[in-house]
């Protein structure tokens, strides 16, 4: 079934200069292959569109069920220069929550939150 990423994984964003890093952590290790296969750099950049200039890198840490996206050109020039209300990009990661992922029925019991 197709579900929003919010049910599969949780997210935290951090800032350094004009770069935002967004970690995506599976709620269960068994869900991680779904992220690894479907939450590609291309999928993430497509979700952000012009909001993130890029380039972007994905670091995968399978034993921890986590991946870390490093998005350059994501903070409007950096915390002090940006015109954005969210100058640290603290809520930037939440844009990924509505990305739809295909999840095998067998994994559905591991999903979080309301169906």
């Amino acid at each position, binding site marked *: 079934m197709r579900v929003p990423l*919010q*049910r599969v994984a*949780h997210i*935290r964003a*951090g*800032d*350094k*200069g*004009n*770069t935002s*890093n967004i*970690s995506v*952590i599976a*709620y269960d290790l068994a869900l991680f292959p779904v992220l690894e296969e479907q939450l590609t750099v291309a999928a993430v950049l497509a*979700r*952000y*569109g*012009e*909001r*993130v200039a890029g380039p972007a*890198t994905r*670091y995968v*840490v399978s*034993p*921890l*069920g*986590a991946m*870390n996206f*490093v998005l350059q050109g994501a903070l409007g*020039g*950096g*915390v*002090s*220069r940006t*015109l*954005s*209300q*969210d100058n640290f990009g*603290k*809520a*930037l990661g*939440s*844009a990924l929550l509505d990305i739809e992922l295909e999840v095998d029925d067998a994994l559905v019991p591991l999903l*979080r*939150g*309301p169906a």
Partner: protein
Amino acid sequence: MTLRIGSGAAWWADRISPARRNAEEGDLDYLCFETMAEATVSVAQVRRVSDPNFPGYDTYLDDRFEAVLPGCLRRGTKIISNQGWVNPIGAAERIVEHLQKLGASGKKVAAITGNEITDRLFTVTDTILETGEPVSSLDPASLVSAEVYLGAEPIVDALRAGADIVVTGRVADPSLFLAPMIYEYGWALDDWARLGQGSGIGHLMECGAQVTGGYFADPGFKDVPRPWDLAFPIAEVESDGTAVLAKVAGSGGLISRDTVLEQLFYEVHDPANYLTPDVTVDFTTADIVEVGPDRMRISAIGGKQRSSTLKVSIGTREGYIGEDTFYYAGLGALRRAELAREILVHRFDEIGLQAEAVQIDFLGVNAIHGSASPTDWPEPYEVGVRVVARTQTAAEAAKIGREVDGMAVSGVGMTAKRVPHADRTRAVVGVWSSLVDRTAVGYDVTMLES
């Protein structure tokens, strides 16, 4: 033996009461404060010029020390803090005054200085990391300050010299927590495995409540018990750096695999190569085990030889930002906001606004995710119109607020606007990074006594 290290602050404006609680109830050997952001030094330097009463250190230093000193003195807890900002010696003098006020004589307060390299910037650095341009391309007239991120070593020196309290300027955040581990357990400064594990624990600690349930809750997905009563974390560190992350009994919040993992990646780029002045940390091997309620045992974080360079943070004056906001509500709110935007675009043209960039956001629609916001969502009941521009001069920046003023009686129907207003114009201090060879940087330890 277990070394008990607590967090006292994760940033300048952090809550004070959890620091007091750690000092009173945490049974701590060390209490560590992280109060600096990337632009703190430059902003402090700019303020020093305009405000002769600004002491150059953490503006909450008095509040923090009044809160924690009684508990720390009773328990014998040592304090390590980067509240010195651009004036660590001034901060140390002020801390001595606080000690004397409490009748605590003979306490040693160390100030670490030497990491400011503003005068030498153009001779000891090469490249701006963000742009690849040479540092020499920066306008010297715009340069505010440049400072090196020091590591744990100067703090260890101060502890070896008998300091009860160590106050620093710019130090890498994890180093504040690593220093007591090195000092208490006698780790060598090239014991990369232990330094890696210890720095990893420092990294998990340095953002305070972000590992105890803060910056975490998402109702229905990630719930946090009593999130109004979060504690700052305590690391119970063993001699090999393995640590249990814990918090004071009776506090709200939680420490779980999920909170630890979110913080593990926070502000990290390559998780196998997290550069600090002390060691290159490898988080990918971390072992995270729950050993009790709100108790997570962290081990097997790796370490590799440290880099031969240190990070330099450079602050430059880059003009001004002008900003103001007004609001609409009820049926047709978004249409009125769109008309208001059209009026402002015409007005800025009319007055010949000189701006590098102008942005008009709709709060409630697209102010946070910008162009990545969906356009097919239901109309919001309320919309804020946020107008912001970056300019070369303060006078141009002030025009943003002045034009928004005009929207009160010359704008769209049913416009809500808060008057009086404040702080609609601010100076921009841009931050750049570079590297400096670590042999080009020294430091000094100045010891005061109460």
